[in-house]
């Protein structure tokens, strides 16, 4: 039985008064320390390659005349998916062009492409390593969880502190935010390859490398492609947010429109983003379904 005289005391007692953890101060100190120590290193070794790739991609995309660009998209979408997707893609991009946001569209596409290229360059090898070591995956999983659940805005502050403002810090925040699906689904795809097939590979004397490239990666390809598809979608959403710290493109249209209460400008930017997202999604999904031996034809 509860002693009635004790209850009020217990209720009145607030355990949170006893200890006050100065988390804000600690994190500020930590970020300050990281910035002080690594800022020069990051700016010297991380910014240049990211900037170089982004500028090259942007140069390539913007030097293609719009009509040729539409034709190329049509061909790519037909090859990767179907003529329906090809037709849809061309119409969607034509709408973007007629709304007079072609140039920001090209900028956003370049940012997304760059972010995805780096996410894959880093994410695919990490995913492959994770599929071979349970220990590594156990260590990396919480990091991936943090990367994905942290609100995108929170990345922007340290990104600005380390890299300043502009496209590059926006891209780096995007890469960190968008990479986890590639790692997760590469790992998952390889682990899902049927044990029977792996056993057959071993029984015929495959080396671990032959096993990876001749059996595991080809069979994991649809899953890996699903990861890349997610990464593209995430980087598109992040690239828009990155407009706050000075990244250009369609995100900037939205951001600028909101700041000036120009609803029309914001919506045009928003529609452009949605159309771009749909086109990229359909094309990459089509790629994933085209793995050999899984054709629906019979």
């Amino acid at each position, binding site marked *: 039985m509860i002693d009635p005289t004790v209850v009020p005391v217990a209720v009145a007692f607030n355990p949170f008064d006893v200890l006050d953890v100065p988390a804000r101060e600690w994190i500020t100190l930590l970020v300050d320390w990281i910035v002080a120590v690594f800022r020069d290193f990051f700016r010297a070794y991380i910014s240049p390659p990211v900037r170089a790739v982004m500028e090259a991609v942007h140069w390539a995309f913007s030097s293609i005349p719009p009509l040729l660009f539409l034709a190329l998209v049509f061909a790519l979408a037909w090859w990767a998916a179907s003529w329906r997707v090809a037709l849809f893609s061309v119409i969607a991009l034509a709408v973007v062009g007629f709304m007079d946001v072609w140039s920001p569209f090209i900028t956003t596409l370049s940012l997304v492409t760059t972010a995805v290229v780096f996410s894959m360059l880093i994410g695919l090898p990490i995913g492959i390593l994770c599929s071979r070591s349970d220990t590594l995956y156990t260590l990396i999983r919480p990091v991936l969880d943090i990367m994905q659940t942290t609100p995108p805005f929170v990345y922007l502050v340290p990104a600005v502190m380390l890299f300043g403002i502009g496209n590059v810090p926006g891209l780096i925040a995007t890469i960190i935010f968008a990479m986890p699906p590639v790692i997760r689904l590469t790992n998952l795809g390889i682990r899902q390859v049927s044990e029977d*097939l792996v056993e057959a590979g071993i029984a*015929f004397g495959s080396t671990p490398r032959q096993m990876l490239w001749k059996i595991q990666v080809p069979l994991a390809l649809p899953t890996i492609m699903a990861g890349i598809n997610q990464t593209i979608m995430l980087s598109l959403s992040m690239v828009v947010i990155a407009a706050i710290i000075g990244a250009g493109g369609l995100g900037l249209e939205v951001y600028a429109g909101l700041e000036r209460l120009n609803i029309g400008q914001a919506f045009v930017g928003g529609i452009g983003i949605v159309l771009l997202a749909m086109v990229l999604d359909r094309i990459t999904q089509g790629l994933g379904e085209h793995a050999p031996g899984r054709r629906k034809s019979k």
Partner: protein
Amino acid sequence: MIRVENVTKVFGANPQSVLPLLEQGKTKTEIQSETGHVVGVKDASFKVEAGQVFAIMGLSGSGKSTLIRCLNRLVEPTSGKIFFEDPEKGELDVTAMNVEDLRMLRRHQMSMVFQHFALFPHRTVLSNTVYGLEIQGRDKQEREEIGLKMLGMVGLGEWAEAYPSELSGGMQQRVGLARGLATEAKLLLMDEPFSALDPLIRVQMQDELKKIQAELERTILFITHDLDEAMFIGNKIAIMEAGEIIQIGTPEEILVNPRTEYVARFVEQADPTGVITAGTIAIPFRGTAFEQVREAGELKYLARQAYPEIEYGLDRDGRLREVVSAERSLTVEPLESVLEGRSHTSHERRRDDTLLTCTNRTVLRKLLQGRTYSTLPIVVTDEDGCAEGIVDEMELIGAILEKRGVSEEEAEAGIEAPRGRSSTA
């Protein structure tokens, strides 16, 4: 070709700790409840000669799949030794090999066919077939040549560019077989290759495997849970129960002389007509069932006490020279020549003036077919043509119903027990 000595496999956290318990004679169940370890294979020893088809028969959970995987170390044996006779390098200790040697052994000497085919779905039929050659590093033209030859052999030459998902189960396993044969490995490990197939397709595949084996003369280790399949395909059979090999012998030895109650239960269901041979069931002339009724010149005439009307005239070497029934001489013809081109559902009256002869390796099915031609007993001869004994209706019926040879007393009375003669081990 391969020699397995006292191989034991225990699954669990600390397999070595269980070995002394096994030596004390504890059973699989006791060990499992006491230590949580599962004994997969217990003290298995056998030898497979080059060119032989060695079948391992057992129910699921008897450890047969674990045992076959110990041979190429897909499963690491807990104790025991495995020796492989390499045609060039002599005898190799598989259990002592390092990773690289083991990989070379798997690439060049041992290949495998799997129960659920394990074809690579992203590769075409041809590309699946040549996987082993690709791993060996052969150039593309050479491996495709070999691959197409193998596909032709299994009857899938037309399907080289198809994907496995487009094939039926039977066709998929043909690809599995072609892939196993393509590496030119001397030893082919087949883990229940036909178990997942429809009965009709299974029988067809068994026939084809026999044909291919006759042509290629590989050494095959064949796992199955079907005794009829084991007896049809195997030159020798090992029967497994609860991780142990409980009997090894030729199909006929096992059928006629099951060593344990467990084996006997299986044998009961088996079809003896393709396994039991004339030599095993014949009533021997030298046994007590026959006595000499008269002598004429070179020939001694023998007759059965129960059926004195037929007299068998043997010369000094034991060759059958004359058969006399009711004072007239009967025609003697070899069984093989009579069966040629004859349908055993013929409506002609059965002959009572022709006596058939056959060798002691003739199987029961052939004897039965012979009896549709003639009503008289069949005389069984050895390889040299000397008469061993006769097979009459009762022996045929006994062989089908009891799967036994002549009764124990008769066998002991015979100077050479027919059962001993039938074994070629």
